[in-house]
C-alpha cells in the first residue's frame, strides 16, 4: 500500500493503481469523460486533473494516468484545478451545445456556457475522447474507426468516412460513447451505424433479431464456435 494525503486526509491505496482510483476510493468525486473502464486511457478530456505537490514544487497532472506515489500530497479542488475543469467545460459546451450530458455535468460543476464563444454546429455531440476508437481496436479488435486530421479539424469515423468493410456493427462504440454522439438505428432485421446497413440475425429459438450477422460471423471465426451455435440469443441460450 502507498500512503498519500488527498485533500488533507491520509489515504492509502494499493501500489500500481492510478491516482483517479485512489481518489475515488477515498469517496472524493472527480469528473471524467474519456476514462472508460473498458478501454486504455488517453488523458484527452483533462477533466480529471488534480494538483500534486512534491517538496516545494506543485503541478497539474491527469489523475487517470498518474500512478500513486508514497508521500504524494494531492489537492483535487485547488483553484488551478477548478480553473482547468471550468475551461474544459466551457470549451466542450461551445463545441457540443446540444449535449445534455455535458450540460448536466456543467451544472454540477458550476460552469456556464461562455457567451463569447460561437457555438459549433458541425461537431454533433463528439468530444473526441476516442473511447470509441479504442474499444473498436482494443476490445472488439477490428479497428473499423479511427481519428482523422489534426487539431480542430480532427474527426472520428471509418476510413475516408466511407462505409467500412471491417465494421461488424456490434455497437461497442455506441456503448462507450460518453455523450451519445454515435448514431445506431436498429429496426428489427436491419441496423444502421457509421453509414452502413447490417443484416440482423434472428434467434433460432425465439425469432427475435438480436445481433448483426457480421458480428456473429466475426465471433465464430475468432473463437471457432460454429455460427449455428451462436445464432441463439443470450436469453434463449
Amino acid at each position, binding site marked *: 500500500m502507498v500512503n498519500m494525503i488527498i485533500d488533507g486526509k491520509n489515504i492509502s491505496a494499493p501500489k500500481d493503481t492510478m491516482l483517479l482510483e485512489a481518489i475515488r476510493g477515498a469517496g472524493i468525486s472527480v469528473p471524467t469523460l474519456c476514462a472508460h473502464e473498458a478501454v486504455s486511457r488517453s*488523458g*484527452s478530456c483533462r477533466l480529471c486533473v488534480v494538483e500534486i505537490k512534491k517538496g516545494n514544487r506543485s503541478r*497539474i497532472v491527469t489523475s487517470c494516468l*498518474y500512478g500513486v506515489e508514497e508521500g504524494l500530497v494531492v489537492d483535487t479542488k485547488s483553484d488551478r484545478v477548478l480553473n*482547468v475543469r471550468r475551461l474544459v467545460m466551457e470549451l466542450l459546451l*461551445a463545441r457540443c451545445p446540444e449535449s445534455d450530458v455535458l450540460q448536466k455535468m456543467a451544472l454540477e460543476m458550476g460552469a456556464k456556457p461562455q457567451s*463569447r464563444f460561437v457555438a459549433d454546429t458541425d461537431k454533433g455531440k463528439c468530444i473526441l475522447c476516442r473511447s470509441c476508437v479504442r474499444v473498436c481496436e482494443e476490445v472488439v479488435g477490428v479497428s473499423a474507426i479511427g481519428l482523422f486530421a489534426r*487539431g480542430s479539424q*480532427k474527426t472520428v469515423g471509418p476510413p475516408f468516412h466511407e462505409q467500412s468493410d471491417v465494421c461488424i456493427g456490434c455497437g461497442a462504440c455506441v456503448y462507450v460513447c460518453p455523450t451519445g454522439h454515435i448514431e445506431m438505428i436498429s429496426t428489427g432485421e436491419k441496423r444502421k451505424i457509421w453509414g452502413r446497413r447490417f443484416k440482423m440475425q434472428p434467434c433460432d429459438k425465439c425469432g427475435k433479431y438480436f445481433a448483426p450477422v457480421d458480428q456473429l460471423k466475426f465471433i465464430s471465426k475468432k473463437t471457432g464456435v460454429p455460427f449455428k451455435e451462436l445464432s441463439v440469443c443470450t436469453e434463449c441460450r
Partner: protein
Amino acid sequence: MIKMNNTQALRQVQDDLKSQYDPKKKLVTICAGTGCRGYGCIKVKEELEAEIKKQNMDVEVRATGCFGFCEKGPLVIIHPEKIFYQQVKIKDVPDIISKTVAQGEVLEKLLYRDPQTNETVMKEEDVPFYKKQNRLVFGQNGMIDPTRIEDYLVIDGYSALAKALSGMTPEGVISEVKKAGLRGRGGGGFLAGIKWEGSRRAHGEPKYVIGNGDEGDPGAYMDRSLMEGNPHSVIEGMIIGAYAIGASEGYIYVRNEYPLAVIHLTMAIESAREAGLLGRNILGTDFSFDIKISKGGGAFVCGESSALFASIEGRAGEPRAKYVHAVEKGLWDKPTVLNNVETWANVPLIISKGADWYASIGTENSKGTKIFSLVGKINNTGLIEVPMGMTLREIIYGMGGGIPKGRKFKAVQTGGPSGGCIPESLLDLQVDFDRLYEVGSMMGSGGMIVMDDRSCMVDVAKYFLAFLQEESCGKCVPCREGVRRMREILEDICAGKGEEGDVELLEHISTGVADGSLCALGGSAPNPVLSTIKYFREEYDAHIRDHRCPAGVCKALITYSIDPEKCTGCGLCIKVCPTQAVSGEKKKAHTINNDLCTRCGACIESCKFDAINVK
C-alpha cells in the same frame, strides 16, 4: 575510406589527410546552405569551376555548409588570404578567378561594406556580423564539404569519440557532460548529463539515442543548417552519447521537407559506417552502435518527445502523458535519450576540450554557446552563434545591424511560436535559459524574430496562435479547443469586433490551456498572447476601445491617405496599386479611394517620399 579498426588508425588517417593539406594552397569555399542555394550559389559554384578549368588553374572549389550570413549570400571566401566576398553573382566569377585567385587582387565591390562606417571589410572575422560571435559548433561549417567525411576528419573530427572510447569509462563521459553543464538546445533546457545518467541506470534493452532534427518554428533554421552543413558533428555526438548510456541503436528524426539535410545525413552515416565509426565494433572496440534516419512528415508537434517516438514507431504523431520519463520508457517503451541535434553537436567539443573549458563559456546556469536564427525586421538576417549571456541589444544591434530603414525596434519574439515577445525595455536582458523564462518567453530552439514599429502585437499574437491551432494534434481539449477560441477572439479584435473583457477572457483561457494541456505545445501556446498582453496591453485596448491599430497593420481598422505636402505626383503608386485605388495627375498630389483600397501596402513600399499615411 578504409575501415579503421583502432584509434591509432584514426589518428593515422587524420595525419595523412593533414599532410596532404597545404595551408598556402589556393582554395575557394562557397556557402551551399539552403539560403545561399536560394540565391543561386550552385550556379555560381559551377561557373567558378568552369572558369578555373578555362584558365587552366589547379584550385579546388568547395561547396560547404552554411556560413550564417544569409542576408548577403551567395558568400565566397578565397583562401589562404580569407578574402570574404558577399552577394556574388555569376558575372563576378571571371574577375574573382583572374584577379583575386590568380593575382591576389581584392575586388572592392564584392567586399562587405559596413553601413556604420561606410568602409569595406576584407576578412570574414572582421565583419561586424561575425566579430562578436563565438562559433564553436557552427564555425566548422564554412570549411567542410558536408558530403566528404575526409573534410571532417582533417579538422580532428571523431577525435573526441576516439578519446572517449580509448580513455574514458561511460560514467566518465557522463560526469564530464554533467560537469560541463550542457543543457538541451531544443527547448526545455534540461541538463543533458542528468538525462544520460537516468538512461544509463534504467533497465531495458535495447537502449536508444535519438537526435531531434524536427525543427519546425517559423523562421528558425539552425538545426537545418547544422544537419546540412556539418552532419558528422551531430553523428559523433550521438555515438559518444550512445557509448555513455549503453545504447546500441539510434535515430535521427528529421523532417522530409529538409531534403538536403536528409541527403547529407544519409551520406554521412554511410561514410561513417564504412570508416568503422558506426556499426559493429566501433574503432575495433566492443562497442557497437548504428543510426537510422527517420523522416518526419513535418508536423510541428512531432518535435515533442512522445509524439516523436509515436512517429518513429509508425503511429500518428500525438503526444502521450509523460509521467514515466523517456529515459526509462521512451521509444518502444525502452530507455531513450532524446536530444536536439545542436545539443549532440556540442558533445564532441566537451569531450575534446574538457568540461572546465566548456563551463567557462556562458552564464552561471547556461553554459556554452547557442545558435540563434535572426530573422524578421533586421538588417543582417542569418544564423549567429554566441556565448550564453549576450544581451539582446548586442545581438540585434551588434550582429544584426539594427532595424532596416532606421525604423524603431518594437519587440523580439524568442523561442518560436510558443515563445514570448520581449519589448524594448528588456533589450539589455542577458540571453540564457533562465532569463528568457523569467520574462515570459523561452529559449526554445533559438529562433529570434525581430519586429519594428510597423508590427501590430495583436496581429503577431494572432499569427502565432493560428500557427499553433493548425499544428495542435487535437488530442486534448484545452489545446485543441482553447487555442482555437483564443485565435477567434484575436481575429475579432483585429477585425474591430473586440469586446470589453476580451483581454481578461484571453487570460482565463491562457491559464487553463497552460495548466491543462497534455504536452508542452499546449502548455506554452498561450505565451505569445500572455507576453503581448503583458508588455503591449495598450495596443489591445486601442483595438478594442478605439477601433484603432496603432501600428497600422489590421486592415479593418486603418485607412490610407496621401500627404499632399510630401507627394510629388511621380505616379509610382498608381503603377503598383493592384486595385486602381490611386489616382491623380502627374506632378500633382495623388489621392487614394478607400473604397477600392485593399491596404496591401504596395504604395507604401514604392513611395520614395514617405507620402502615404496610415491611420
